[in-house]
């Protein structure tokens, strides 16, 4: 076990606090020390609250001494994407418009983590209103990738990816509407779980697209994601779209072997026009899974470009509708790129939007038929490793949307189908940038993805590598 508590996994640190090998104060201080070291380089935090965090840690230690542990994450300090409402606190949503917005309620996902005993380190950066995949932010500056400071983190959960990778927080909530958990996981070398639509309540989470928004964690390991998912999943009276499907023991699933499982590799789209290093790492990942006992088969998927196009129609309209009042009253307060993207939705007829919504059922059925006989499908998180901040700073230029759509072309189809997908660190480029793979599963079968991801992480050490300050 590491002598520096911040370097432990979430699962390890929760056990260490419970067994009194580390106090919550020692753990929190360790995170705060790393935040002080890294924040000037990364810009991963929007707010850092050392005094409050240490006071909460002391209270957690005192409670534990009296035998009053709150839950599975008692005394564990975390920070989350700044779009989860926390009653009485400012929640900026990465925007100027909500710079002073004080939440009056607490999001269900966040409350369930609080109920498990977590304490707050501060809040994490994000793309303005979660509408962008690079990590640039016109109001608060770009977040930097700890593996290469002039490279993007991916977005929109930019601070979550950067902070988890640099070991500033043990895990962080993200959100995923078009790839916003999996992109930062891919570019920053962390494990990210995009959950099935409806698996975790969206109550109190800033909306972007009510039909595609999902809540999920970024963490260091599949086991950590399993722990967090088990705490957050399940029905919620505050969100009628939160599914009442049973919540299995996800952590138990991570201990199972993958011998005899079948993993599909698409014959097209997800393997087309890959950066050579991403292609190499995909092949190496498949080889590891094979060595661990999985059967690898090729799958012929329906046309994924149609799914990506449908996702774009849905998100554009729903995001514009959410923002319409501010588009009228405060257009000058948006960053140029987010304003441009919100305006896109104005030009899509209602009938086109509803056709895209009506097609979701048949499209999901066709996908599931195509992957029958497999337990999961593996594809890259993105076709390329992290681009530089400069080359992806496209603002509201004429090709901005095309650049965004290219970056997210492997993630948007999954959102349209509402499927779960686990992004796992799978290798590094020759320049030292991480590359991740997505495991895509069936609706509400996150357990299978976590099982495969954990088996891969038992056989590799990509998730254990820690970036060094430049």
């Amino acid at each position, binding site marked *: 076990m590491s002598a520096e508590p911040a370097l432990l996994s979430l699962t390890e640190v929760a056990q260490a606090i419970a067994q009194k090998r580390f106090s919550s104060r020692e753990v929190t201080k360790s995170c705060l020390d790393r935040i002080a070291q890294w924040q000037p380089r990364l810009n991963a935090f929007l707010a850092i609250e050392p005094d409050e965090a240490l006071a909460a840690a002391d209270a957690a230690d005192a409670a534990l001494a009296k035998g009053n542990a709150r839950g599975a994450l008692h005394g564990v300090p975390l920070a989350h994407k700044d779009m989860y409402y926390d009653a009485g606190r400012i929640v900026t949503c990465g925007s100027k418009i909500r710079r002073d917005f004080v939440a009056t309620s607490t999001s269900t996902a966040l409350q369930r983590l609080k109920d498990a005993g977590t304490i707050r380190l501060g809040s994490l950066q994000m793309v303005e209103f979660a509408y962008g995949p690079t990590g640039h932010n016109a109001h608060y500056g770009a977040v930097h990738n700890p593996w290469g400071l002039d490279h993007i983190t991916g977005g929109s959960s930019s601070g979550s990816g950067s902070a988890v990778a640099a070991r500033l927080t043990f895990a962080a909530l993200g959100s995923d509407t078009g790839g916003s958990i999996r992109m930062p996981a891919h570019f920053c070398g962390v494990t990210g779980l995009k959950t099935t639509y409806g698996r975790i309540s969206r109550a109190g989470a800033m909306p972007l697209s009510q039909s595609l928004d999902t809540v999920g964690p970024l963490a260091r390991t599949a086991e950590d994601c399993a722990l967090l998912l088990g705490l957050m999943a399940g029905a919620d009276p505050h969100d009628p779209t939160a599914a009442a499907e049973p919540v299995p023991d996800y952590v138990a699933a991570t201990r199972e072997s993958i011998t005899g499982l079948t993993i599909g590799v698409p014959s097209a789209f997800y393997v087309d026009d890959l950066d050579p290093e991403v292609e190499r790492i995909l092949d190496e990942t498949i080889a590891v899974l094979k060595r661990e006992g999985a059967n690898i088969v090729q799958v012929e998927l329906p046309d994924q470009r149609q799914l990506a196009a449908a996702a774009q129609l849905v998100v554009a309209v729903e995001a514009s509708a959410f923002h319409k009042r501010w588009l009228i009253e405060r257009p000058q307060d948006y960053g140029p790129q987010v304003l441009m993207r919100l*305006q896109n939705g*104005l030009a899509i007829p209602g009938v086109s939007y509803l056709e895209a919504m009506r097609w979701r059922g048949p499209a999901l059925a066709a996908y599931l038929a195509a992957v029958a006989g497999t337990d999961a499908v593996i594809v890259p998180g993105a076709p390329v490793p992290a681009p530089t901040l400069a080359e992806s700073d496209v603002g509201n230029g004429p090709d901005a949307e095309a650049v965004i759509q290219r970056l997210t072309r492997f993630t948007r189809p999954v959102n349209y189908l509402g499927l779960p997908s686990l992004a796992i660190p799978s290798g590094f480029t020759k320049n030292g940038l991480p590359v991740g793979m997505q495991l895509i599963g069936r609706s509400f079968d996150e357990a299978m993805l976590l099982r495969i991801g954990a088996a891969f992480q038992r056989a590799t050490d990509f998730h254990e590598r820690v970036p060094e300050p430049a």
Partner: protein
Amino acid sequence: MTKPTPKEIKAMADVAGVPVDAEAAARIAHSIGPAFEGFAAIAGTLPFDLEPASFLVVQTTKVSK
């Protein structure tokens, strides 16, 4: 399904109550054009009785390997 022209987009934005200038309309047309093209093969082909809620039916149907 054909993608809207900048002129049509300007009119739609006006009707929506969020007017955009000609430059923004041209940029929007360029941005969303590929989505219309990508979805063109589906648009206008869906059966009469298909509702958006069919997605939830498929999602919650137990599918085994």
